[in-house]
């Protein structure tokens, strides 16, 4: 059946079974492979995307449930790859294998859109569902703080436009 949704600002229509997870629609139907498959069971967070600005696990989200919704993936977080989180991630050389990082960044982006000055505990709590098998948590935490700082010092907040409600 045809399902319409908005992915990264573009209207798309896909003809897939309604129970196909959003993850596989993104990766295999729409060729947006930045969103990763790690567990298929909402255990690792590698597949995190935004649905109308809120972080969701696309691996357990049937495509039918996002019909008519706005989905943002790592590819759509910023048009030039210069979202404060993406800059901070590079500044702190966060990743090792990097496979979880799109999910980490998307979860962090949703946090910062709601909470521009998160504490360590806020960050830990928001990112609790995002595993980093390589163990880069300390740098992730630092980079989220740094991104928050970058956003506070910027006149315009790109999150509010791409991931806000």
């Amino acid at each position, binding site marked *: 059946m045809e399902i319409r949704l908005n992915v990264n600002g573009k209207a798309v229509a896909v003809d897939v079974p309604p129970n196909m997870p959003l993850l596989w629609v993104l990766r295999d139907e729409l060729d947006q492979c930045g969103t990763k498959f790690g567990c298929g069971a909402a255990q690792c967070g590698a597949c995190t995307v935004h649905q109308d600005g809120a972080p969701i696990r696309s691996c357990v989200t049937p495509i039918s449930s996002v019909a008519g919704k706005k989905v943002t993936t790592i590819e759509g977080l910023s048009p030039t790859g210069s979202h404060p989180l993406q800059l901070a991630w590079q500044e702190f*050389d966060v990743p090792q294998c990097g*496979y979880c990082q799109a999910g980490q960044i998307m979860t962090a982006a949703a946090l910062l859109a709601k909470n521009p000055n998160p504490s360590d505990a806020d960050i830990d709590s928001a990112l609790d569902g995002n595993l980093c098998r390589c163990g880069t948590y300390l740098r992730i935490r630092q980079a989220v703080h740094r991104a928050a700082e970058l956003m506070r010092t910027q006149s315009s907040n790109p999150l509010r436009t791409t991931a806000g409600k």
Partner: protein
Amino acid sequence: MKSMKRRFFLRVSAVAGGALLIGGGEEAAAQPTRGSRQPGPPILPSAFVQIDSSGIITLTAKNPEMGQGIKTALPMILADELDADWKLVKVVQADLNEAKYGSQSAGGSRSTPNNWDLLRRVGASARLMLVQAAAQTWNVPATECTTDLGRVYHRASGKSLGYGELAAKAAALPVPDPNQVKPKDPKDYKLIGKSLPTVDLPAMVTGKPIYSIDFKLPGMLYAVYEKCPVFNGKAVSANLDEIKALPGIKHAFIVEGNGDVASLASGVAIVATKWWYANNARKSLKVVWNEGPNAAHSSVVYAQKAQELFAQKPAFAIRKDGDVEAALASAAKVVDVKYTFPFISHAQLEPGNCAAKFENGKLEIWAPSQTPGRGLQMASQALGLPAADIVIHQMRTGGGFGRRLANDYLVEAAWIAKQLPGIPVKLLWTREDDMRHDFYRPGGFQHLRGGVDAAGKLVAWHDHFVSFGEGEKFVSSSNIPPAEFPAQFVPNLGIEATLIPTGIPTGPLRAPRSNSLAWVIHSFIDELAHAAGKDPVRFRLDLLGEPRVVGKGMEAYDAGRMRACLELVAEKSGWGKRTLPKGHGLGVGFHYSHSGYFAEVAEVSVDDQKRVKVHKVWAVGDVGSQIIHPSSGINQVQGAVIDGLSEMMAQEITIDKGRTMQSNYHQHQALRMKQAPPEIEVHFIKSNHPPTGLGEPPLPPLLPAVANAIFAACGKRVRTLPMAKEGFRWA
């Protein structure tokens, strides 16, 4: 460490567009013998360095990248010797060609030590040729020329030329003997030791399709592979017609397999237009399996068997120094305890996958392998194809940890692709496939007896290790090396073993053997320190003794390097100098593995409900004279600490009726961010030794450091892993 005298050779050629290509390799005679390569003719020349006429330098990253940072570190070595401008450097991943590049495996923390000398000489040779080309152009002595940031300078005349302008001329010059080329004095390094931007970092944070799982080709079909839940069981029949009628399904067939789970286990392949259709069809799949003899295996039986075996004499000796029994009998204090550790899974985040295409008798593979050379040989054997007809492209992988030393996903993908000539196929496992069909870190059981004399000196050590294997042959990664510490440091020491047969596949996992043995050994040393009434750091320093190298060849252990790490970590952590908050404890551990020396201290608190908080970890390592990329180096150490904590608390693979009972991260938990120590302080001691790897050696000491800190905090000894089985959990 056994050091092999190495000789290298280079060849240079000009290509269209005025490029300089520098190839190099180690002569085959000096090649390490392990791996699949047969000793043969010298390695053929290859391209490590390519300089185009505009000055852009393309450097080859020869080894698999799985998060250890080698795709940045190895090209940095080339670039530094070359005096390249890193801003003009492009790094490309090499395809598999070990004849051209030398060994391309990533494992055992060997990528750095195996390539350090080679790549320095390749880089230095290229630089020398560019200098000579400039000198000839200007008609000045080469010795008057200098290089910096991709240019050759003649200061006296004020002339300079960019590498791009010199490339064509340099390529026509005779090739220097790399063994005569003098690499830089380390004080002149401009890139090595700097945290340059990691290759692929912008792609990682913007979601570019750079991983193996992301690789696509036009017309690609997607496959899943259902294997028997019991290891090495065989698929007898399946409802294939029903499966083939499901949406999106193009093919479904039984694969007989070759009886070797490391190569091609039997199973059912389902191939679809998109992966989800193939995987969804598994819900309808009904397979009749012949489970085979492994269905009788279970973890409970192993544990019972181990207790029975502890009551008997060990089956065989691994090491016998002095007279252990006499020394124990006359010791002032004896400690007699048992330790148990479980099977665990690699659980790297990107599940097993591989793309393959078979066309006109040739097989092309895109693989996330740590040992692509072995993968090629295995595919060749399993499919009956000449190795020369197989090409392997190396893909960036979402974590390795040793899982991708095996090539089962590669052989499965190749086999499926061979059934569908002309069609590219991508095999992707689910997390459940990955966790249930791993080559696990083997569990083990240890009965330790140790004795200290009246002066508190360790005089006797006996280890009865109940592990897995047949007779005296251990299964992969389940052995204890005869020189394992404290062997060579205790006068009366015995290591004996008894093996339990197992059908469960085992294999190396980050710091194989050390990841469990270090915990047992350094926890037990801590018990002995307390029995002796000595400070745990003091007891260990006394055990190490004076700085010296103990043992020879592969058994060499540099007590001086370890002492330095231990002394510095004690200093940095304020060992014995600080008053700790109530309920806090400090614990220490050290371990030598994979050519690296590490000592670590953990500060831990434990509440009355056995909730554990790791407040801080201090790690001090000596992996030689250079930390090529410090940011990546620190990241590896911090990651190893986190990984070690994951292994301690909640990771366990259990077997029942020959099946793995865990299937996903909820049952085999990795540490979450809030459980991570808020601080992990890392220090490197730069000793006068060639640089070695960092992927593995920081992990092993973490476990005993934390276990010993728990004892210091609450008086409870952790003698069983995962700790959750003893009622501990994270605060």
